């Protein structure tokens, strides 16, 4: 019962790779966006905020289909990237990473934004009076103080990415070894006779990964509070 088969390992490792890449690529964009939303008022801010949160409320199949239309080989962006940069998303693991990145983005941005909003801006003023240019203030005061929130966002995004199913299967299908993540492997297994035991093992692994991520995110959030109070 507890023996994990090579095919299951393939799905687990692929899921990890997809989620790690999705999180790492999404993080700089997440930080930039969190900062923009936390610190600036501009025309269309509510709209941008809504767009970021859209994957959270849209049916995942809709997000996946939109990705297919945009980033597929015949898509506007996908065609350009394939032709000029040789980057292909459709039916590749990179596409799975893109789908996971988009789907997990709202969860990734939220803790980052909250932690930037919680920073005492008078500390940034103090940094400026000590001779720090705005970009130095960002990297020496804002970002270090927001770091626990940034890490919490990364962990939550990672957990969401590793479990993503709907958008991924719509966009890049369910190809073992290329785009079959833990979720799509479970989906295939429960439709197969005698697949229950294997599905059960992957289900347990999913639960462990998700729980671990939630606990880690909570831990980072507690660190953030401590850090802001200077202990």
């Amino acid at each position: 019962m507890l023996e994990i088969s090579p095919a299951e390992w393939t799905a687990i490792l692929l899921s990890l790779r997809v989620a790690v890449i999705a999180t790492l690529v999404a993080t700089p964009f997440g930080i930039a966006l969190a900062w923009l939303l936390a610190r600036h008022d501009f025309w269309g801010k509510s709209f941008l905020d809504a767009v970021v949160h859209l994957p959270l409320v849209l049916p995942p199949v809709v997000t996946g289909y939109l990705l297919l239309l945009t980033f597929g080989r015949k898509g506007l962006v996908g065609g350009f990237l394939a032709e000029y940069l040789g980057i292909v998303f459709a039916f590749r693991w990179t596409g799975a990473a893109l789908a996971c990145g988009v789907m997990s983005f709202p969860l990734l941005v939220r803790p980052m934004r909250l932690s930037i909003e919680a920073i005492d801006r008078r500390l940034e003023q103090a940094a400026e009076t000590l001779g720090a240019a705005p970009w130095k203030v960002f990297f020496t005061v804002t970002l270090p103080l927001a770091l626990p929130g940034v890490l919490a966002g990364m962990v939550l995004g990672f957990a969401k990415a590793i479990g993503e199913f709907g958008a991924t299967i719509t966009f890049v299908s369910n190809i073992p070894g290329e785009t079959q993540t833990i979720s799509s492997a479970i989906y295939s297994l429960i439709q197969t006779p005698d697949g229950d035991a294997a599905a059960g093992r992957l289900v347990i692994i999913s639960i462990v990964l998700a729980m671990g991520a939630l606990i880690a995110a909570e831990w980072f959030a507690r660190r953030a509070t401590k850090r802001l109070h200077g202990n």
Partner: protein
Amino acid sequence: MLRVDIEKQLGEFSLQATFTSEGRVIGLFGASGAGKSSLVNMIAGLLRPDRGTIVIDGETVDDTAAGIHVPTYRRRIGYVFQDARLFPHLNVAQNLDYGRRMNGLAPDPAQHKRIIDLLDIGALLDRRPGKLSGGERQRVALGRALLSKPRLLLLDEPLGALDEGRKLEILPYLVRLRDEANVPMVYVSHDVAELRQLATQIVMLKQGRVTSFGGVKVLT
């Protein structure tokens, strides 16, 4: 040394101040709400005057007619706030070193040692700001501002958040600073006794206007 001639409208409140000072410690005196902090924030560049000029050490840092507004981080000022504002994620030594690093100055161990001795903060270097008392925090904030080698030190009620006992603990350090550190200061306070001890010149503010200017005797 410091020349100020500004006007600023802040909601219902209008601030208008003109003075020139060569004093070592300019005491900015007035009740709360008189406009002291706004004036200091303008000297620091954190607030922009509606009209007028500010000249620090011969350099025009604000001139609305000429469209000059030097940003805070290029003014080479030190600012000690009432609430210290030490960086919570850095220890005392890193807080002290922050201004030097940001200004790209070479390490100056002699000055470093002198200021740490002057303020008696050598024993605190490894601590985080959260583990310091109010008086210790204020001394570290003073050291941090001085070590960025400012040409003007702004102190906005630096003793305002401390109780009587702590005030008496810090005052001697400020007197020593005035006599030994060789940095001109603008010292904001509503406390006559404090200014009598420290200031060499007084600018008295009342409801956004300079009402008197001169030696410490204008306080009487």
